[in-house]
């Protein structure tokens, strides 16, 4: 059973200050981390492998991490290896710098083809920075796999994957045949801490192959983005001391509207 987990490296949000009043993003400390969505996907995949065979790698299960990013995305792949992946691959090239989601998916699909198509792809539901939440479902379509998004519980057998996914206002249990691509909800798969010895080995003993444009089967059309960024903006600064008075019912209505406007509740 082969599982591929596409992962992403993002800027560490704790090193960034967003000043709504100045309408600027200040990078106080430029550090990169393994995206939490990707970590959850790795956790989900590693759990599947452990549940199947107690984690023994002779069993034929393998979990492979694949990252498209800058050369320093190698660090994220090392962390994936430290968590327990069997192999990791980095796809990087200056030509990929302006990739949007469509281009990212084309590149990942080409890399997955080169790796040999897996039984299962497990991706994060969305990434912590751009949060588009499209990669998993797009990959399913690109590879002609069955697809299940927003999964909270996951199990797999020889020929199918069983998942509990968000549906309507609750959840639904579904089954899909392999090969399949699923995306997982981060809150359902809190990631493990990597074992110390694996952290040391991740850099010293493993090799992370690097692939560029010439290693993959991609056309120029594949690399042209579909979306263009027009503007980056900031929400208005939050005021303090805004006071609401009145009878409980009308005040409650106002506060529900205000919170929904701030995207704090649904």
């Amino acid at each position, binding site marked *: 059973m082969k599982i591929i987990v596409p992962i992403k490296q993002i800027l560490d949000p704790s090193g960034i200050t967003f000043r709504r009043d100045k309408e600027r993003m200040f990078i106080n400390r430029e550090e990169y981390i393994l995206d939490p969505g990707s970590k959850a996907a790795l956790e989900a995949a590693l759990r599947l492998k452990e549940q199947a065979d107690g984690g023994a790698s002779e069993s034929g299960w393998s979990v492979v991490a694949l990252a498209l990013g800058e050369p320093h995305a190698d*660090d994220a792949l090392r962390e994936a290896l*430290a968590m327990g992946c069997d192999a990791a691959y980095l796809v990087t090239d200056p030509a990929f710098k302006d990739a949007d989601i469509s281009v990212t998916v084309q590149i990942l699909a080409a890399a997955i083809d080169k790796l040999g198509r897996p039984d299962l792809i497990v991706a994060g539901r969305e990434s912590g920075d751009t949060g588009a939440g499209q990669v998993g479902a797009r990959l399913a379509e690109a590879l002609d796999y069955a697809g299940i998004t927003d999964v909270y519980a996951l199990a797999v057998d020889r020929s199918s994957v069983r998942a509990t996914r968000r549906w309507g206002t609750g959840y639904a249990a579904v089954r899909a045949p392999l090969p399949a691509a699923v995306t997982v909800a981060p809150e359902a798969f809190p990631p493990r801490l990597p074992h110390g*010895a694996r952290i*040391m080995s991740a850099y010293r003993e493993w090799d992370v192959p690097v692939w560029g444009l010439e290693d993959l089967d991609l056309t120029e059309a594949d690399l042209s983005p579909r979306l263009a960024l027009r503007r980056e903006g900031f929400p208005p600064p939050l005021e303090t001391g805004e006071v609401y008075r009145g009878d409980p019912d009308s005040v409650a209505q106002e506060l529900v509207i205000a919170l929904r406007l701030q995207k704090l509740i649904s």
Partner: protein
Amino acid sequence: MDFSFPKEHELFRRMAREFAETEVKPRAKAIDREHRVPHETVKAAARLGLMGVPFPQKYGGMGGGETGYCILMEELGRVCTSTTTVIGAHIGIAAMSIYLDGTEEQKMKYLVPLAQGRAIGAFGLTEAQAGSDAAAIKTTAVRDGNEFVLNGAKVFITNGDIADTIVIMAVTDPALGAYGGITAFIVETEWPGFSIGSLENKMGIRGSSTAECVLQDVRVPQENILGQFGAGFLTFMKSLDVGRASLGAGCLGGAWAALEASMQWARAREQFGVPIATKQSIYFMIADMAAEIEALRSLVYRTAWMIDTGQPHILEAAACKLFGSEVAHRCIDKAVQIHGALGYSRDYEIERGWRDQRITEIYEGTNEIQRIVIAANLFRPYGMRIPT
């Protein structure tokens, strides 16, 4: 010159920090209040390979070297000095002495389980009449066939009551004194004759246990002599020397936590209409803390690098412990002052930090001993011996 950490150590630091935040910090207040060792934390640490950070993987360790060990101690020191003490005594002097002076058989038999956290270690040197004057120990080891019979009582032994393996210093030849008359033995605490006496009621690090260990006709096979027969003094000096750098790292973590807490409070607390962080009396204290912490950080990790690259480091390691404990003292003291009455409240962690810090100037060689070590190293090239 490249002052950056190797990448695996940076990843390790992130893991250690998260471990400290999720496993150690939530228990810190309770173990201090209830005066108990956090066994669950130790188990969780063992699962992640943290109980053997500096040791090579072939001995069940993590392969992180002294640098990795200092990183662990720093991250633990940020949140709980008690936990740092429990794990530090286990790794830094108990297991470390077996690593530095043990035979391959001893390493396989004792170091591996310690490094994997399946066994807990302690280091038994101090006695009631022998603290700084370590050579004044009276525990005896008398040969009987191919065994030694040990009799005596050790005091102030960290992990003494929870250890499976304890390295005991005993006098094998009273006539020879410190050099030639003391031997180190690896003792298993379950052997008959080994018992625990009283437990210390301490000002701080109350989440660690400090025990009296009594040996009554404990029979130790001669294969368990650690290092050379009669050269026990050298064995314990070696491991204490190396241990000092990591103690400095623990103090670094504690000092840094004091700084962070002070900054957080100073930003929030308003007096005279402004946050106290804008008052010079406060921010000067904070600036002083930060400057000292920077100096300590460079000292600790340079010393760790020297240890990892096999360079002489005795003076630097002693400086780590001496300077580190005093920096930690000044920082936590300033932190109490900055927090005002809140710094005096048992409901807040600052007073625990203040109580916990004080031992760092006393244990593992008092700061007076550190000064003797540094001076002795400075004057040795001139052929001058510095007496204790």
